[in-house]
């Protein structure tokens, strides 16, 4: 117990020093208001954006542009769609990621149990799949070995059928897989699997 506290202490100290030494930014620390965060955010972001869309440097478009109510001559108003997009990204910024979930012992144990069960289930499914593939591969291997040692139909020499089976003519070509094959499986497949008569109008 004591070792853990000593190891945790430096980080706590760092936290407190950071908390007290650094002046908090005004946008982060709002005074007690009844305005929802979302509204406050949108107002401040609009104020920050301002008119004009010229500058090219850095990701944060125009920070040096002064906020003006009235349009001057030659100054173009900011596209409202741009303001909308900026607000969209402001909401997604890392500062707005919600706090992590908090769980006490029993609730955490429930989650942990379900999580382990889910992992176990996925593992069983995956292993069953891999087992199937392995069995298929091994039976292909056995069949080909059998073919290799068989003398073919009629007067054919040994291994004729094996050579025919190993021919891979056009497998890697552009027509290797017919387009009708590539049809994703659905819960409700159509009655006609592929409409060959279809034409673009």
């Amino acid at each position, binding site marked *: 117990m004591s070792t853990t506290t000593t190891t945790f202490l430096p980080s706590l100290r760092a936290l407190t020093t950071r908390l007290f030494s650094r002046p908090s930014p005004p946008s982060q620390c709002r005074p007690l208001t009844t305005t929802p965060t979302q509204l406050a955010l949108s107002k401040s972001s609009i104020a920050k954006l301002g008119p004009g869309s010229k500058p090219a440097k850095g990701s944060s478009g125009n920070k040096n542009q002064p906020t003006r109510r009235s349009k001057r001559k030659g100054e173009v108003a900011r596209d409202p*769609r741009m303001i909308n997009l900026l607000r969209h*990204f402001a909401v997604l910024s890392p500062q707005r990621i919600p706090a992590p979930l908090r769980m006490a012992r029993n609730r955490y144990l429930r989650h942990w149990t379900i999580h382990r069960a889910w992992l176990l289930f996925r593992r069983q499914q995956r292993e069953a*799949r891999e087992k199937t*593939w392995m069995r298929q591969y091994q039976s292909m291997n056995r069949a080909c070995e059998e073919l*290799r040692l068989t003398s073919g139909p009629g007067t054919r020499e040994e291994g004729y059928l094996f050579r025919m089976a190993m021919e891979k003519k056009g497998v890697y*070509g*552009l027509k290797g897989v017919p387009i009708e094959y*590539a*049809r994703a*499986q659905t819960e409700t497949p159509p009655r006609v699997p592929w409409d060959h008569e279809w034409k673009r109008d």
Partner: protein
Amino acid sequence: MASVRALSRPTRGLPLSQISRQTTSACSRRWASSQAAAAEVPLEDLEDSALGAPPLSEEEKKTFRPWKRQADRKFALPSGRYNYHAPKYDRGPLHPVQPLPSSEPTARDFVPGPFNLPRLRQTYLSTVASDLMTLTYNHIPPGTPKKPTPQRLRQWDGSSPYHENRSLRAPRGAPVLPLLERDINFTNIPEIKEITLAAYVPAALQDMDNLLVARAALLAITGVLPEMTKTKTNVQQWKIRAGEFAGCKATVRGNEAYEFFDRCVNLVFPRIKDWKGIEATTGDSSGNLAWGFTPEELKLFPEMEVNMGMYPPKMVPGCRVYVKTTATSDRQARLLLQSLGLPFFGEVKN
């Protein structure tokens, strides 16, 4: 029945762990084979509510002392109240405070699990994977000597004594060694690993709004927050300086990658006019294929289409799409994507 249920009651006072207590209470379940005769007799027990606890005897009351268990416990249980906060910053692998793994529900980057199985992935797992394995099966008779792997790095000629113990040189002209093709067997059936969308927006050097629109478009299409990319070189004619933001990229992995591919194949490509397919010469000869979308084609994505009013239409960028597969050669990757519904055209190279 009440007596059977009461069996586990005195054991609760004993200092047992929670797990073993659960097993004891589970043992008090009614076993049909051993209690078939006993179950016929006490019909009056039918009146009992299942929720009512059986009364405690005096002896049980004496043995039930939870405070004693609490006092005798050598290690304190974690408190019932919340007292742990996931650390906000990753301070490196050597710091004592480490971020939780993302599978923990209390971690900051926890994302609740997959809620669906994409139909393309379902198709792949149930049908396509074993078909690919069968289609490309290459039988090697037992006892065949293994082919030696060719040395593809350039050797030093040994003209200088300093060549001793020097590492080998990279191949001429190519900084990257392409993968050697392996035969497909049941352990390495090719599948889609991840898909990266990348947009280069040189107009962002003049007007940052272009980059903003590009980021928003990629975000809408992939559902992943795009990362901004910088220019690498100075080119006078193109008015490019190194180190300026002029593009963005977004990567989707796993299920999302399959869903994105499904959307491309079934919703976007069929709507492109006079579309012939993907050029068959694509690929980096290591199993990664790529194609591009023009701005007009990017607008065909349903996520863009429903919300086109959000973007200035002239600023919508085109993008490149890189499909990274676990295939070890281009032809294997092409076979995989063909079987998932992507047609190719033109000349086949490797």
